[in-house]
């Protein structure tokens, strides 16, 4: 800012902005304000979480094993790869683009990893890095074609969707597959943290959240900026903390159905997802780069006029997103125990995009969060998991999957309805 305004600034400061909560409100006031906001239709992530809860209830009633410890733990590992893939797609969707090739990017990258371990006897670290690099290279090429040549991303990634299928076939050989039984890799989906480690991480995370929340609140108060009342901040921390502790408790129980073979602890895939969530939330929400991603998705021309290098943002998004997709391929390989010629194919991609959209990400760009992938991914995984327990004929499975997906989405849509009715 120049000093052009400084002259006025001081006397103007008094005026303030009506709804800026620069003064602390009481908890009671805040709760009333929250209820009013929900009434008004501004509900944040509530609707999609509501959809998930409805699903859990429906399946819980349909099958008594659905809510067992074992099944809930299964659910988390089953959801792992789709959540990560959906998270990879969120930034691409934020731009208003799409990446049809993300599934096969994951498959191809995982194949590179598998082959390096099995055929080249490389250590797993090298293999994983190579896989991530594969993802990054694929993403960069896609990004350059989209940004510099201006081909619609649907077409570019359709081409890669096909091309990578070929690459995967070539890498693995017709009808073949590569076994992934390296201990660390296969442990991602199949091993668990020790009970002690689980509790410790849970407590550390809660402590970190609390510290960040309270410090941030203090800073805002001291600078006279818009902030939530302390009571709300504390309530949020308590709620999230309780959720984390409950999940940790459940997963730390022995869930084996076989007395001689105890299974307990948090599956490693959970901390992996949490770390990714933190990284992506940070990158999208707290960095200049993330801000620019939203701007490009919201109004690319405005972003360009603001001096943002739109092409560079686009390329970087595809690069990082494909790298994350590579990771999802690795997790899938860990869960299934191999990489095959169809890894990442089938409906993988549609499910992942569906997960992101159900979580609340817009296909038109500019609207969405990394955490959308978690809720949406859990919805999709829950459907497969719940139906698996019901054991119906395959045609019924298809129909019910479609129906349940619609159910979850309409809970979300209907509860958001007010929002659009009030013009928000």
């Amino acid at each position, binding site marked *: 800012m120049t000093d052009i305004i400084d002259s006025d600034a001081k006397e103007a400061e008094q005026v303030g902005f009506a709804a800026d909560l620069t003064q602390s409100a009481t908890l009671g006031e805040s709760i009333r304000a929250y209820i009013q906001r929900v009434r008004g239709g501004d509900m944040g992530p509530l609707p999609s979480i509501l959809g998930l809860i409805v699903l859990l209830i429906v399946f819980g009633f349909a099958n008594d094993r659905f809510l067992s410890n074992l099944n809930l733990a*299964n659910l988390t590992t089953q959801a792992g790869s789709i959540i990560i893939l959906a998270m990879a797609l969120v930034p691409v969707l934020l731009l208003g683009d799409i990446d049809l090739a993300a599934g096969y990017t994951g498959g191809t990258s995982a194949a590179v990893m598998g082959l390096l371990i099995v055929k080249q006897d490389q250590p797993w670290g090298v293999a994983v890095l190579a896989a991530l690099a594969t993802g990054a290279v694929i993403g960069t090429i896609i990004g350059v074609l989209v940004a510099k040549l201006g081909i619609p991303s649907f077409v570019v990634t359709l081409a890669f969707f096909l091309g990578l299928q070929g690459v995967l076939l070539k890498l693995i050989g017709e009808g073949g597959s590569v076994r992934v039984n390296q201990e660390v890799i296969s442990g991602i989906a199949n091993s668990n943290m020790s009970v002690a480690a689980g509790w410790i991480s849970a407590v550390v995370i809660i402590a970190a959240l609390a510290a960040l929340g309270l410090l941030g609140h203090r800073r805002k108060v001291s600078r006279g900026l818009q902030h939530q009342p302390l009571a709300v901040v504390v309530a949020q921390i308590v709620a999230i903390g309780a959720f984390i502790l409950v999940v940790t408790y459940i997963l730390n129980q022995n869930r084996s159905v076989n007395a001689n073979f105890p299974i307990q602890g948090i599956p490693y895939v959970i901390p992996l997802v949490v770390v990714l969530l933190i990284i992506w939330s940070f990158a999208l929400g707290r960095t200049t780069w993330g801000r620019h991603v939203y701007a490009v998705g919201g109004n690319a021309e405005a972003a360009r006029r603001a001096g943002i290098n739109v092409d560079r943002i686009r390329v970087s998004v595809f690069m990082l997103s494909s790298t994350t997709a590579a990771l999802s391929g690795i997790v899938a390989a860990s869960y*299934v125990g*191999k990489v*095959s010629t169809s890894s990442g194919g089938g409906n993988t991609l549609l499910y992942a995009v569906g997960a992101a959209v159900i979580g609340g990400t817009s296909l038109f760009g500019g609207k969405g969060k990394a955490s959308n992938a978690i809720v949406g991914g859990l919805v999709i995984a829950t459907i497969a998991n719940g139906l698996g*327990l019901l054991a119906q004929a*395959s045609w019924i499975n298809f129909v019910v999957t479609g129906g349940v997906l619609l159910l979850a989405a309409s809970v979300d849509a209907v509860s958001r309805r007010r929002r659009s009715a009030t013009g928000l």
Partner: protein
Amino acid sequence: GGSDSEGGDGGSAGGNSKAEGKIGVILPDTKSSVRWESADKPALEKAFKAAGVDYDVQNAEGDADKMATIADGMITGGVTVLAIVNLDSESGAAIESKAAKQGVKTIDYDRLTLGGSADVYISYDNSKVGALQGEGLAKCLGEKDANIVFLNGSPTDNNAKLFSDGAHSVLDKVSTYTNVAEQSVPDWDNDKAVTIFEQLYTKVDGKVDGVYAANDGLAGGVISILKKNGQNGKVPVTGQDASVEGLQNILAGDQCMTIQKSATGQANALAETAIAMVKGEDPKTTSTVKDDEGGRDVPSILLDPVSIDKTNVQAVVDAGDLKASDICEGKFAQLCKDNGVG
């Protein structure tokens, strides 16, 4: 329907009757062949019901992830014997080792899981299927000079490779035959098969004397192009699965042969074995099959595929896999009568 929700028959979960435990079966898909849903599943359910055991039969719809998910669910659901038709050896092996860790016995059904830990393997011999297809085509072609087009199954399916290798092992030995073109059909997609064959036909200028088509679905596509070019019935086409479509094409003279791997027979063998295992008995195996990867001999029950041509369509009906009325509907009634089917 599965049993545990409606498990009235045979005393459910905590059962007080003879069989304590539960049998889980995971079928592979609905696309590669219709048999899983139309033959195996009903036959298995019928046998299990008759034996009064608890069971759970599901289909992984071609998705290895999904199969693993289902397996997890079944083990959660208290299955003690788990039979799978693997989508590939590696994912199958992962499921089997997970099951073994939890004390669940496993059966490889139809497809051997290389490097797996299954207690029994029940199947038809896939290389033999290919060889029978080759022999069938050679029989239809005779000794003349012949250009052969190969339309293989999905490039991502190992069985497709075994079928094709088996056929080649027979046909490549005949010196008068020339392999003029060969293509795989991604995902066994019947629709794609038509375009692929139409292009192969154009590529070789229609100089095709025989077609190896990996199954009846692909054969049907080949026949539709031959028909369009007035060559149906003149160019023999192989098949597999003894499906209604294939048998009708055989009766009409458009298809040379198909392979019957009686799903009902195979399912009955599985049911018998699984029921024995649930009761804690040892399964009666007939031979062993070598698992090169796992370096072990897997106790096996191997069933024989049957080659079907115009002369023995009735055999399929007799085996109980299909009803004559399905084959002989509409225009095919007369052909059935002529060929003694019914």
